């Protein structure tokens, strides 16, 4: 399963970011989330959600093998990560956000909390492959 985004439905509320950071880092900090919300105003008046679709390219380039496949998803082991950011550069969608207080990029682990909190169904599940 992977997360599918319908940008038309996104309202820019960022509830997904809040819950992602709360669940993974136990802090209230939307900037410590695995999602990026891009706002395009005033013209055309759109939001674009950028989130990992578990392609595995980060795992391929990681020199420390800190990112491994686990079923449908790829998980980052923070203890092995040296913060070289090879994965950040390799990511085709630019969805490995970093934060100056965190020792590694933020890797989406398909917990699907963001889907549950989205009141607009902008985030849904699709079959992988």
């Amino acid at each position, binding site marked *: 399963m992977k997360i599918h985004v319908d940008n038309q439905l996104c*309202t820019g*509320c960022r*509830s997904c970011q809040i819950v992602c950071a709360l669940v993974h880092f136990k*802090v*209230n*900090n939307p900037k410590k989330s695995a999602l990026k919300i891009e706002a395009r105003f*005033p013209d055309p*008046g759109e939001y674009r959600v950028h989130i990992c679709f578990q392609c595995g390219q980060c795992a391929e380039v990681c020199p420390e093998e800190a990112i491994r496949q686990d079923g449908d998803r790829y998980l980052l082991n923070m203890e092995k990560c040296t913060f070289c950011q090879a994965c950040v550069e390799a990511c085709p969608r630019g969805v490995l956000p970093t934060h100056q207080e965190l020792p590694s990029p933020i890797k989406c682990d398909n917990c699907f909390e963001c889907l549950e909190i989205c009141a607009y169904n902008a985030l849904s599940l699709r079959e992988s492959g």
Partner: protein
Amino acid sequence: MKGYTGMILRVDLTTGKINKEPLPESLCRKYIGGRGFIARILFDELPRHIEPLGPQNKVIVATGPLSGQFVPSAGRTILGTKSPATRGYGESNIGGHFATELKQAGYDLIILEGQAEKPSILHIKDGDVNLLSGQRYWGMGAIQTERVLKDDLGERYQCLTIGPAGEKEVPIACVSHDFGRQAGRCGIGAVFGNKRLKAIAVIGTQDIPIADFRSALEVGKKMYQACMSHHALELWQKYGTSSVVSWSNRIGTFPTRNFQSGHFSSFTNISGIVMRERIVVKDKGCFACPMACGKYSRIHREDKKIYVEGPEYETAALLGGNCGLSNIEDLAYANYLCDELGLDTISAGSAVAFAMECFERGIIGVRETEGLVLRFGESEIVFKLLEKMGRREGIGDLLCQGVKATARVWGKGSEHFAMEVKGLEISGYESRNAPAMMLSYMTSDIGAHHRPSWAVTADITLGRNSLEGKAQRVVELQHLRPLFDVLGVCRLPWIELDISPSLYVKALNACTGMDKTIEELLEISERIWNLTRLFNIRENPGYGRHCDYPPGRWMGEPVQTGPTRGKTLSRDQVDHLLDEYYKLRGWDENGIPLPETLEQFGLFQEAKEIGSWKSD
């Protein structure tokens, strides 16, 4: 204490000095945040009788302990100042994402003091705070400024901006944010302009502190789930406040032709249904909001694409029905003009409608209007008047000061239908057959506005023609509704999706570690209510009962058309409502808080001093 950042940012625009001060815990416990901070600080720090448009006035930009937290619609910033419109307590709140960003930068509130010599931008980047030159942006529209600032500084910055109206210190100028949200009332934009502060731009990366993370997560999820399973959610997501347009006409409370009527015969052309069909392109939400009431729209004018968030209900009321505009694209364009100029759509719509009625009655003529023929429903006239008001040109220079000031100059009985209380224009509910709503407008602390008490439902459930229980309901609402401005969150999930206030209390305690009850919070709210009343009494010599009356039109003149045709309230009935209200509040017959009432709320010093202010 967690929940707060614990830091006040104090900016002296005269000297350029920027100070960071600790937020006193006692202030948090006694006043909680947002509106509570504003009322206390303005009262304590503003010298008596200072000029609102002068260097001694201050603007407070405040968040609350729940701002930026995992609570539905936790994205409110509250602004306060001594209002240039009323010369009294001024407060307005704004959605979007500014509050969260400010807290992530590490500040609970900003106190703006003094007056810059040249146009300035307050720039906040976590711990780095400085004043930048605002010259480049001076003259730009409020929305345009935000766009250019984001281009210059970074897309992630959240900005508060003013437009040309604020720069020209128009007393009905607003503060703008997030491409279409405004802190509309009380002319706070004018005070920004007087301080030559064009914008505040903030970016923050820090954690927002939570005391009990587990409880906060649990309560937050509960509140979100309650929102998402509510039967009215879809209505609000789709139509936002525009869903109220049809209902308001149905019950005869829709301002029409300068409040001559409560029903606009063309309302279906400016309703939520038509809006969604013809112009809405995006449902746009504030921080953490499951309701996304923002309706972002696009119209075409002279081959250009024009974007505007809205029209909201209030704009459809005061610029729509009130001015007779019966075309949704025209209404959206008028909204856009106000947004770029930085004008409050409520006050601007009321002023335009007032001018139209004066022209129709022959109180003013083409000499005053420089040849313009003012008639209800003439959209090009509305557009021209808004431009003139925003830039203080021609007739706009007087009209932009609001209907009270304009009626004083034009005279000839026009005061009778200058639809204001205390110098603030009445918002979107024609209330001659809604006594609780009328009382709400009469007694709102900032002047006529529905934010502190929206009581139309009470009028329906208790009886439109009855005065029974109305004052009681207004008092209750004036404590409960402003609590949201204290906590720093939007009140719509509570109002529209029945989210229980007890959940907000749980969230407050979880985020801060405090142990408040709803009763304690309501008591704090009542303390604040008395404090803002005192501020008005102190600042306006002779303030009292006479300031709490509605305009002449609402006492004796019958509604012209619609479901409430023929209805009115008499002076006796208005007096009855006021008497009952003062009694419930523990104020004397002149509307002055009794010393024992103030003591009940711990306002001992103020109780001692009140005697000296009254006799000035």
